[in-house]
């Protein structure tokens, strides 16, 4: 059975999810990678105005391709690299992250502490996942190229619960 969810994701819905659950997510999600995460966290630390409202939002670790204005492959990147920025973003209220691969063990604790979920999606399937992105919009840091923050409007974006709000991991 596939669970259908819409963003923004609320804690009361997230706590019902268990590892291995399959989800179809619809609504807005925000791309981020190494350098955009770093810049965003710097803005938070300096108490500057943020380019997006993070509360109850979902971060997608992804650096997409664009052919002109058309979105190209946009699959997940290795989440582990962004672990060091996670707690700061959770404090700002983000509800979930999407990426590929296992994360550092402390992320399980963070998911429990902040009632957050880490979703996996299909790595190396960027063309397939593009079909589920209906619209996109540049949000911040255009000088970073593919590492800029984009808003993706997704429909039935396929996810698997990798770490649930109890801190259980799909990797055991």
């Amino acid at each position, binding site marked *: 059975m596939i669970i259908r969810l819409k963003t923004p994701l609320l804690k009361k819905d997230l706590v019902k999810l268990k590892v*291995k659950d399959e989800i179809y997510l619809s609504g807005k999600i925000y791309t981020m990678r190494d350098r955009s995460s770093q810049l965003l966290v710097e803005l938070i630390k300096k108490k500057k105005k943020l380019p997006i409202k993070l509360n109850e939002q979902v971060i997608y670790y*992804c*650096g*997409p*391709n*664009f*052919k*002109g204005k*058309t979105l*190209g*492959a*946009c*699959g997940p*990147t*290795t989440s*582990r690299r962004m672990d060091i920025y996670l707690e700061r973003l959770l404090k700002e209220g983000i509800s979930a992250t999407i990426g*590929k*691969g*296992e994360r550092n063990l402390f992320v399980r604790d963070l998911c429990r502490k902040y009632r957050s979920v880490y979703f*996996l999606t*299909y*790595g*190396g*399937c*960027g*063309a*397939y996942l*593009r*079909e589920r992105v209906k619209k996109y919009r540049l949000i911040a840091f255009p000088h970073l*190229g*593919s590492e800029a923050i984009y808003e993706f409007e997704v429909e039935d974006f*396929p996810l*698997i619960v990798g770490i649930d709000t109890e801190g259980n991991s*799909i*990797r*055991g």
Partner: protein
Amino acid sequence: MNLEKIIKEIAIKANIELRKDVKILLKEALRKEKNEKVKKIFKIIMENTKIASQERIALCQDTGLPLVFLEVGRDVNLNYSLIEKINKGVISGYKTAGFRKSTIDKEGKLSYTPKIFHIEFTSAKGLKVTIFPKGFGSEAKSALQVFPPSAKREEIDNFIIETVKNADIDACPPYFIGIGIGGDASFALVLAKKALCEDLSRPNKDKELAKWEKSLVKKINSLGIGIIEKKGPTVLAVRIKRYPTHIAGVPVGVNISCHALRSATVKINF
């Protein structure tokens, strides 16, 4: 003959058309698979291949560092202008197809390619060019160890197995694994990449290595790493390449590729 244009075409092809041998191995793995969840992943991978090829978009957003392997024949005049033409072809391909600028310099400037060429000379005629877009999710899991000449095969196996264990599912399994044994330390790693550019659906011509590869596939797949959950094969093929080395050591390089193992080759006659 327009060299730049030929290279442009194969740089695009390498990123949007999955290699024939890789497709064969994926299909075979799907046919053998019994677990429904794992079957679903294989089907999505194949669907991804179809969409990329139909829509002419990259299989994966990480179009990698576009590495260039050259086999330079005896009638080829290899010089700076030839290298420039090839590099321009790669850039033009990446630009036209809308591939990502994944290369960054110390000033933070983004570009399409760091211009990495691996060159060897052959006594044959013509120029063979292989474009190998290497994604960094898998490149990040590379490993090198120089063993003493007394090292047993089991020790080398353990090193390779530890490398895959360390990669876990971060590098987009099921994997293809290239192993280079011999040369100097850096050469062993290049050899491992060259191994990944071979036709992996055919057994290694060296029968002893073919046997070793098979046993490694078996050992790695019995670790139970899986693909997303701890189910399904972690590796679809291992390819070992050997080269003479120093009497005092055995360098072993391991290079992992994700399931979207991409490369394209063209032979050009002058």
